[in-house]
């Protein structure tokens, strides 16, 4: 469990990126922080592994105040996946994946063997192990990034718009993979995106943010869709324009579900 307690971050230039932020992130679930650019998502995420320190307030992981933990040790037990994959260009895929275990003192051979298994886990062919990141496609690099994030078997995985730069088809694949991994491994995933569809797809808990890290609404996707807290949320999830509103049409005695454009999406089971 990760808890934000009245967390404020003001940057040296005076920008208040996050103000008095409170949130409980349940364990072994995916929590998605979603909001438009500049609302403080990255700042919130990076405060969890102390890449950024809050100006005031506390962040607790399993009841422990992170301020009391050494940043380097903390980061090694939290997986971090970022948009541009952030791989080390001069290291082979296998060594990139093995980075954190090697830092933790695991013998190289052992770390590499485990890294190979992780390539399987994230759906990459083992033949890519000896390639350099530059030789991989963007989607493959993201998978390597995820494998690296998982290598030290962290309980928490932070993902900052990890699929922002890949094409829609690959993104859809990676999203499914993320769901599968999260369920299979039982990680606490904190996922940042500005894509509400992605948020609803991945999130058990979705946090809709406004500027300054102000929470517009927290809930399951169903709760948010059923009861948007206000006009902002309604417009953000598209409910105001009739988006996500499904209708039932009787066709040949059966209930056909039709989306906002009148396109049939399925049939209701009796």
């Amino acid at each position, binding site marked *: 469990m990760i808890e934000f307690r009245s967390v404020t971050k003001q*940057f*040296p*230039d005076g920008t208040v990126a996050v103000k008095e932020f409170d949130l409980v992130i349940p364990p072994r679930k995916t929590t998605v922080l979603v909001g438009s650019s500049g609302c403080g998502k*990255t*700042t919130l995420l*990076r405060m969890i*592994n*102390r*890449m*950024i*320190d809050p100006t005031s307030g506390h962040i607790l992981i399993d009841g422990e105040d992170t301020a009391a933990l050494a*940043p*380097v*040790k*903390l*980061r*090694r037990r939290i997986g*971090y996946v*970022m948009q*541009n*994959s*952030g*791989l*080390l*260009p*001069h*290291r*082979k895929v296998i060594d990139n994946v093995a*980075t*954190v275990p090697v*830092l933790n003192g695991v013998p190289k051979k052992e770390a590499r063997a485990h890294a190979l298994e992780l390539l399987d886990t994230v759906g990459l062919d083992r033949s890519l192990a000896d390639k*350099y*990141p*530059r*030789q991989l496609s963007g989607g493959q690099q993201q998978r390597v990034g995820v494998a*690296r*994030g998982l290598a030290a078997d962290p309980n928490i995985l932070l993902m900052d718009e990890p699929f922002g730069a890949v094409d829609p088809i690959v993104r859809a694949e990676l999203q499914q993979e993320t769901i599968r991994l999260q369920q299979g491994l039982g990680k606490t995933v904190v996922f940042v995106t500005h894509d509400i569809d992605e948020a609803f797809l991945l999130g058990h808990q979705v946090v809709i943010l406004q500027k300054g890290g102000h929470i517009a609404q927290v809930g399951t996707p169903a709760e948010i869709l059923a009861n948007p807290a206000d006009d902002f949320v309604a417009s953000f999830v598209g409910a105001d324009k009739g988006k996500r509103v499904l209708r039932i049409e009787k066709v040949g005695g059966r209930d056909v579900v039709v989306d906002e454009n009148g396109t049939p999406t399925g049939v209701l089971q009796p």
Partner: protein
Amino acid sequence: MNLILDGIAWILDPANQTGPGGWFARLGEQLAYTFGAVAIAAIIAIPLGYLVGHTGRGRDVAVSLSGGFRALPSLGVLILLGLGLGIGFRAPLITFVILAIPPILAGAYAGFEAVDRKTIDAARAVGMTEGQIVRQVEVPLGLPLLIGGIRSGVLQVVATATLAAYVSGGALGAFIFEGVATRNYSETLGASILVTLLALILEGVFALIQKLVVPRGVVAREIKEVRTVSSRPRAAVGSPIQEGK
């Protein structure tokens, strides 16, 4: 043409080759100045450049320092130091160290600065200490530019080392000055040809080293003169990447 042939003949004459005053020994001195001065300059400039490159602090000082050093006329420095330290190898050596510091310093910090900030940020985010970031990320990725800096240092010193003879410091310049003084132009020319050849050979060797040190997996860029101006904007106040060091 005749003169050049005379110069080559001078080089090939065994009488000019061996012994303490022969060109074998003088060439050795030229090389000793070059590598001695570059080694000392490297010991001073590399840690300094790395510090500047890693922290981003003191950059302006480093730039103006190397700019200032570059502007110093070597001959003037040599004569001044020679007056203070007397004849021998010390004044030339110090002069050449001063000559070699700017390019090596610039190569060291430019190498670090050329590393993508996102790569460094990612290294920090997965739990590398600052020391590990330096050793495992910045040093290997910055190596091509550093070697570029050392290369220009070596080339500048190997040519300038000829001046050592001004303060009786030996090296190949001894023949050049002697030849001019005694109107033995084949001697002057022979020594000049040797200096030129030496510079060309070193240039080739370093071009090769520079190719070899480009980390595999990184596209080799054409490395020209080491920049003294940052290649990328540096945020005045900590960008998100600077946070959480």
